[in-house]
């Protein structure tokens, strides 16, 4: 929802545009230039590549138009079509299981009096710090044919749907939990009081008050779970065995067979569920906002021995699962030769010995993630500022906002594929960026744009509009007010967004796997390649290096923010 307070009469018609442009002051020129260049950037980095992808799907290898022939070929290939069913099955089951687990976990955090709530919350973010290849590798050590606890599978194999689902649950848990926690926190205590006064028992209250109150959040969480699962490629690549899914099909078609047209077709097939989930999510979010009343009273849980203990036990088990997966990867990276020589060694961290790119891929990742965080946050802040606080150009601003929402609906694999088609064409002047670090940075910013944009927008919305009115009447140009008022106030959010971009840039594989070059190979891609040739211990070691980097960045960020808020944001305490 954009807060565009532009009166309809001011939206220029074609005739008055010229006049208006003539009457623009310097300040408006700057703003116009800003919005136009941001729109142009998203058009060039998102819309046009997607268009290339679409057109590739109706072309043959030589680039001649073939209509729907590729689609026909796709739907006549039993194996490829079966992947659709496999993907839907996996995503559906994972969605249900992950949502149930996350709901109970979130219920413990928000609606019980169990101890260690903050610790549980912190532990639940572990998976965000790792590439999705990590849980899959760990699962092989835990439940593979030589697994430490393979008895738990009762003879079933981990290479296939079971492995994919367990790995995915680990990987998506924090994302689903975050939404569940929000959904269960925003409730009105008065409803519970009323229900109790009317004599409803706890079970009845749960089904008539708790669930309906959180239902939009639950739907939203389910949608996220579904989309993340169906679009992730790291987990099924490592542990999927012969169980093909859409995400691995794209990779096989494009990297394995260099069949770009068929890759484009599978990409479009994958785009459908992602787009569909996106629409549902948007719809639900709108309703959710309308549900909250301004007079709501926060809910405070009362102690309840049995419930609290049960929830504590559950949260402990779930946390053990998360820690266990991470711990297994750490262990795998340190053991000399699993399972015959269990002595510990750091030899697997000598990446240069097994891969000519070795450690340089880690430095590339560090560089890419830093650039993404710094460049990304500037662009995203400006974009959100123009949308929320800009004056005039209503259509352009809401147009930009819509563009900024689009990346959410585009899976990383599809984005990366679209980049190949768009940027590798020699006739495209932007092709100079192809196979450079720049394209990896831009692709990653676009990939994670929407969430950052929305976060920034929320922060800006909380700033009183009076600032702009006052500075306008004092004839202070907008950019001065922006730098002196908005940027400092939004600093916590700005650093949040930087953190989000940095960690995602460190861990992402899906988009960049199609566009890296020998000079710009990234750490997460090394994990993938080392696992491909069977150097599992080295792959775990590189994944652990990524985790350690993310953790270090998070800790540094936390420290800086803590000292910063303590010293400079005393005013925040009073306003709340």
């Amino acid at each position, binding site marked *: 929802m954009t807060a565009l307070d532009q009166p309809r009469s001011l939206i220029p018609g074609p005739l008055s545009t010229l006049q208006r442009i003539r009457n623009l002051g310097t300040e408006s020129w700057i703003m116009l230039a800003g919005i136009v260049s941001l729109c142009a950037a998203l058009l060039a980095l998102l819309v046009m590549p997607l268009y290339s992808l679409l057109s590739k799907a109706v072309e043959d290898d030589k680039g001649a138009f073939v209509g729907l022939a590729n689609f026909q070929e796709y739907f006549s290939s039993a194996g490829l079509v079966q992947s659709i069913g496999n993907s839907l099955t996996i995503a559906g089951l994972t969605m249900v299981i992950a949502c149930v687990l996350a709901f109970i976990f979130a219920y413990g955090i928000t609606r019980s009096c169990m101890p260690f709530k903050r610790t549980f919350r912190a532990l639940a973010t572990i998976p965000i710090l790792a590439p999705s290849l990590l849980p899959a590798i760990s699962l092989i050590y835990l439940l593979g*044919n030589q697994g430490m606890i393979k008895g738990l599978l009762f003879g079933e*194999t981990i290479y296939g749907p079971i492995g994919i689902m367990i790995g995915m649950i680990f990987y998506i848990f924090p994302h689903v939990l975050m939404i569940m926690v929000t959904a269960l926190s925003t409730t009105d205590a008065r409803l519970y009081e009323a229900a109790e006064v009317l004599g409803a028992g706890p079970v009845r209250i749960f089904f008539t008050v708790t669930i309906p109150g959180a239902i939009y959040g639950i739907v939203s969480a389910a949608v996220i779970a579904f989309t993340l699962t169906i679009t992730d490629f790291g987990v099924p690549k490592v542990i999927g065995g012969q169980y093909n899914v859409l995400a691995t099909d794209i990779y096989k078609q494009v990297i394995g067979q260099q069949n770009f047209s068929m890759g484009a077709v599978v990409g479009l097939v994958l785009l459908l569920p992602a787009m569909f989930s996106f629409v549902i999510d948007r719809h639900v979010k709108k309703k959710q906002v309308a549900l909250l009343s301004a007079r709501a009273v926060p809910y405070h849980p009362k102690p309840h021995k049995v419930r609290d203990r049960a929830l504590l036990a559950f949260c402990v088990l779930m946390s053990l699962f998360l820690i266990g997966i991470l711990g297994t990867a750490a262990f795998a990276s340190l053991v000399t030769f699993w399972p015959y020589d269990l002595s510990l060694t750091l030899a697997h961290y000598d990446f240069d010995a097994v891969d000519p790119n070795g450690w340089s891929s880690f430095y590339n990742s560090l560089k890419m993630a830093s650039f993404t965080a710094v460049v990304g946050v500037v662009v995203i802040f400006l974009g959100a500022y123009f949308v929320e606080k800009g004056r005039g150009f209503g259509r352009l601003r809401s147009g930009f906002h819509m563009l900024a929402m689009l990346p959410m609906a585009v899976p990383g694999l599809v984005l990366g594929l679209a980049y190949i088609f768009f940027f590798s064409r020699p006739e495209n002047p932007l092709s100079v960026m192809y196979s450079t670090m720049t394209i990896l940075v831009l692709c990653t910013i676009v990939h994670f744009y929407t969430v950052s944009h929305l976060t920034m927008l929320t922060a800006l919305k909380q700033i009183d509009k009076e600032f702009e009115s006052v500075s306008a009447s004092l004839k202070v140009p907008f950019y001065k007010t922006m730098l002196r008022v908005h940027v*400092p106030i939004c600093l916590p959010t700005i650093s949040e967004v930087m953190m989000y971009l940095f960690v995602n840039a460190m861990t992402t594989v899906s988009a960049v796997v199609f566009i890296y070059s020998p000079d710009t190979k990234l750490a997460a891609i090394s994990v993938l390649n080392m696992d491909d040739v069977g150097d599992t211990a080295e792959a775990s070691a590189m994944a652990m290096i990524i985790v350690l980097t993310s953790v270090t960045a998070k800790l540094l960020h936390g420290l800086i923010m803590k000292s910063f808020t303590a010293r400079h944001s005393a005013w925040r305490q009073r306003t709340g």
Partner: protein
Amino acid sequence: MTTQYLGKIGSSVLGVVLAGMCLGNVAKAGDLIVYTAVEPEELTGFAKAFEATNPDIKIKWVRDSTGIMTAKLLAEGKNTRADIIWGLAATSLLLLKDAGILEPYAPKGVEKLDKLFVDGDSPPSWVGQRAWIASICVNTVEAKAKNLPIPKSWADLTKPVYKGHIVMPNPASSGTGFLDVSSWLQMWGEEKAWKFMDDLHKNIGVYTHSGSKPCKMAGKGEFPIGVSFAYKGAQLKAKGAPVLTVAPTEGVGWDLESFALVKGAKNAAAAKKFADWSVTRETNVIYNQAYAVVAYPGVAKPVKFFPADLSKKMIKNDFLWAAKNRKRILAEWKKRYDSKSLPKKK
């Protein structure tokens, strides 16, 4: 007041970024871009050896499995960034020769090599470096624990006792996988070979992306038997893994790791130097550290832990036939085995 701190934060962030830039390596115009399918752990050694005699040239490896590299080169065609293709299967280079991507060149001293290793045209389009040979890696500890007899032949692998215990590389992505399939077809003819693969398929746990992974998995006992190549098994054994490398009685498939120059390469001069270096006796000595059969006559010494009679079991390999039929074979293989999606129970 706040702006000061903003400045500080800004400059420290910039510092991190600059530090990051210095850490990353920047591509230079003089870099030699080499597309290769050689095992990654060998590449650093080769680059060091070459750069020691040619300090002005820096090698940039682009490495993936044979099938991937072949597909990539076919797709990139004349727009490829590669200056030289090095250590790719001769079967694949024949395809690339047909596609008109290769630049014929006779490296200095190529006449000293065994004729069988070099393209018949003059100047040759491709030059073989060394042969890599199929083998079966068996984990002796796990075989004992699971009461599995050590397989002696390809046919043994189809016995029901091995169900779920065998891994093999996917021939579409792995050169080793392809030379296996190609050798079975050449030895036994289409009908018998596909029948064999149907039976083998029932025993396969997973198909892997690369040709070395089956042997590494066998080494860890994850799957006790891996269809792979001899070098990997010998190397793992040398590292202490309980791996026995078996050369099946019927005969083993093989292919030549070979190099070829690329038409219109940006760095053609450096590519030629690298080609010249690749046929020298010294370089062949390095090849021999891992592979038992190399192009330079009289260099090869037996490699430790290789099956003793391995080179005698090498089949009479028709590269031309393999190259010509590659697309058809892979399509048939994928149709039969790749789309079967339900994982096999143990």
